[in-house]
């Protein structure tokens, strides 16, 4: 069984009208996001900040009109990006970020959407030439109970088994998968979206406990131990600072980024 590639499909500047845009497809969950960044623009008087640029994030759902979920996603993005963008460089202006969910296996699941959204936004910010302190990369990790049956074709999602898909079945120990698709995620007991800057500082934690078979919908006391969480965090840090930075560097390879 040949395992599919783990490199996301990234296309830069698909939208000619905006200052910076990016389309990002997660390699495993097939979530596709399109973001556009415009800025610095004129800001509405009520949003104007005397010393900073205002960051506006709009998340547009693939199905239906935006609601609480999209506002929540936008808020998470906005707070995370605020720590990355050098807002003091363009005071009294607006940096407008619009993210469109193009395709997703589950349009209602925040964990499946969050990490592609963040990665895509960071890339389009870079293309738009918005001054940033550093770059960030986000990854979604899910912890599956030991002995969970994962179909062969999804084996490459298991952290530590990327190269040899059919290798060993871990016994007794929980399995950590990265960027799971909906089917695998439905078996998860906890889900963690973590974002790290390329220097390894933590920018975002979104951890959820999932009741079995509900795919991140409700919490009924499965939870996680702190040791387990630290383990997950370390994996995420390693992936974001290693692989994540590499992916970003390759994607931007031919582009001139200031």
């Amino acid at each position, binding site marked *: 069984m040949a395992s599919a590639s783990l490199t996301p499909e990234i296309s830069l500047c*698909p939208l000619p*009208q*905006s200052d910076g845009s990016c389309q990002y497809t997660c390699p495993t969950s097939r979530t*596709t996001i399109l973001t556009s960044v415009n800025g610095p623009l004129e800001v509405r008087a009520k949003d104007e900040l005397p010393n900073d640029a205002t960051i506006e994030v709009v998340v*547009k759902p*693939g199905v239906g009109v935006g609601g609480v979920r999209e506002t929540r996603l936008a808020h998470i993005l906005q707070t995370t990006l605020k720590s990355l963008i050098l807002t003091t460089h363009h005071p009294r202006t607006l940096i407008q970020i619009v993210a469109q969910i*193009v395709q997703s296996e589950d349009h209602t699941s925040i964990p499946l959407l969050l990490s592609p959204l963040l990665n895509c936004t960071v890339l389009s910010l870079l293309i738009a030439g918005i001054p940033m302190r550093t770059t960030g990369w986000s990854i979604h990790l899910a912890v599956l109970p030991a002995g969970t049956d994962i179909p062969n074709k999804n084996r490459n999602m298991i952290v530590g088994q990327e190269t040899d898909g059919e290798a060993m079945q871990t016994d007794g120990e929980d399995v950590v998968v990265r960027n799971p698709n909906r089917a695998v995620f439905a078996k998860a007991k906890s889900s963690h979206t973590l974002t790290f800057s390329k220097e390894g500082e933590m920018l975002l934690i979104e951890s959820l406990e999932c009741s079995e078979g509900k795919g991140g919908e409700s919490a009924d006391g499965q939870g996680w131990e702190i040791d387990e969480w630290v383990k997950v965090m370390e994996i995420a840090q390693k992936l974001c600072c290693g692989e994540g930075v590499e992916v970003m560097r390759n994607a931007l390879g031919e582009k001139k980024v200031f």
Partner: protein
Amino acid sequence: MPKEPEISLTEKTFVLEALKQNLRVDGRDLQSFRDIQLTFGDDYGFVDVRLGKTRVLARISAEVTRPRPDRQFEGMFTITTEMGPMASPAFEVGRPTELDHTLSRLLEKSIRRSNALDVESLCIVTAQRVWSLRADVHFLSHDGNLIDVACIAVITALAHFRLPVVTVSGEDITIHPVEERVPVPLSLLHWPICVTFSFFGEDEDGEMICALDATAQEEALRVGDMTITINKNGEVCQIAKSGGVAVEAEVLMRCARLAAEKVKGVDKMIVDALREDEVQRNKGNLDWLKEGKSENER
């Protein structure tokens, strides 16, 4: 609030003078469309339409609901169009522009009221359960002619969409997942396609200059526009000309005839794109494709 950049006087004179000589900035003639590109997604009912630099996404989704009490035999079909700052920073979230209203009204008139989709076929159990279909149109990039592109996107997405099979026994209904039973296409009665003409005033001979598929630049300079919705059989579904320069009946007739001709081409292009996608989807699984057709020997 950001505005669209205004066109300079030099640019304006240049474009208008060129149009008087039957020339356009992008090298097309007045009666031709830009290249249309259709891309389909992984799931059914999702299409990405590109026309030059204009790009529009359409997605169809379906859910089972109760019908409206005054229309118990009919399913529901809604088209949502919302322009965000992605298409152009001049569009604000939650504050629809005039273009927004025109667009949703036109799509409504062209597709819903022309009965392109047979809503009665969406009924599962009378007065109890019907399919509610929704078409979401997302505008990604605005370089003119959003109406025509949005219409092509919705029609293509409807033709591409597959509805899960439902079995009814008494009061109970079972919706079969896509993996279990091959989903069925929607019953589309005809494919209305919008064609928008832009008018740029009269030339030296007193003839009205009218161009098809205007870019954003040309749209900003036009003095009037008219949208004709027509299907490949030449049946006019609606004509919308709200304001702008007065156009003589003769010009209007000529436009309608030209539109009918153009629509045939667009229609064929959609059919070809859909067929190609069907073949791609069923690669290595041709038996399955044959099974669904009645003309094959059994």
